[in-house]
C-alpha cells in the first residue's frame, strides 16, 4: 500500500472535524440573538464591579522565565555532545568545558545581580 493512501482516513477525519468546528461557529454567529448591554460587556470579577486598571505588574516572573529560556536552550548544545562525547575525545571535552564555564560566568552574574532573590 502506498504510504500516502494510509493517511486518507486521517484527511477525511480532519476535513469532518474542521467542518463541524467551522459550522458550529458560523451557525452560532448567524442564528444567535445579540443583545449586548453595559452589564454584559463588563469584565467579570466575582460578581463585583471592576476596580479599575491593575497597576501592579509582576515583572519578576518575566525575568525568571527569560533566564529559564536561556539556560534551558543551552542544553541543546550539551545533548548532542553527550551523544557523541566518545568520538570527540579531549578536544570536544575541552570545548564543552569552556562552554559550560562561560555559562557558569553568566549564572554567577545573574546570582550576584540578585535576580534569584525572591521578594
Amino acid at each position, binding site marked *: 500500500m502506498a504510504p500516502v493512501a494510509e493517511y486518507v482516513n486521517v484527511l477525511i477525519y480532519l476535513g469532518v472535524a474542521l467542518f463541524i468546528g467551522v459550522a458550529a461557529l458560523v451557525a452560532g454567529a448567524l442564528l444567535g440573538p445579540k443583545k449586548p448591554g453595559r452589564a454584559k460587556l463588563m469584565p467579570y470579577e466575582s460578581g463585583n464591579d471592576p476596580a479599575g486598571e491593575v497597576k501592579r*505588574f509582576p515583572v519578576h516572573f*518575566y*525575568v525568571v522565565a527569560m533566564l529559564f*529560556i536561556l539556560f534551558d536552550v*543551552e542544553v541543546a548544545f550539551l545533548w548532542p555532545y553527550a551523544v557523541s562525547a566518545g568520538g570527540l575525545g579531549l578536544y570536544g571535552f575541552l570545548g564543552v568545558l569552556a562552554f559550560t564555564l562561560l555559562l557558569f560566568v553568566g549564572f554567577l552574574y545573574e546570582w550576584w545581580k540578585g535576580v534569584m532573590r525572591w521578594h
Partner: protein
Amino acid sequence: MSYLLASALLFALGVYGVLTRRTAILVFLSIELMLNAANLSLVGFARAHGLDGQVAALMVIAIAAAEVAVGLGLIVAIFRHRESTAVDDLSELRG
C-alpha cells in the same frame, strides 16, 4: 522540495505578520516565525548536504533564545514605562 515550500510559506507568513501586527510582542513573534522558517529549510537541506544544516539549526535555536531574552526584557521595560506595547503608540521620535 516540499519542505522548502513549507519554509518559504512560513517565512512569508512571518514577514506578513511583521508588516501588519501592531503589538511589539506579536511583531517579535512573527520574527521568531521567520527564524524557524530558516531552521526548517536548514534541516531540510541537511538531507542533501550532510549534517551541517542540523547543527546550524541548533545554533539558531540558541541565537533565537538570546534574542528572546533581550527582546522580552526590552518589551517589559517599555510596558512598565508606559503601560502599552502597541508599536503605534511609540511615536515620540518623528521629524
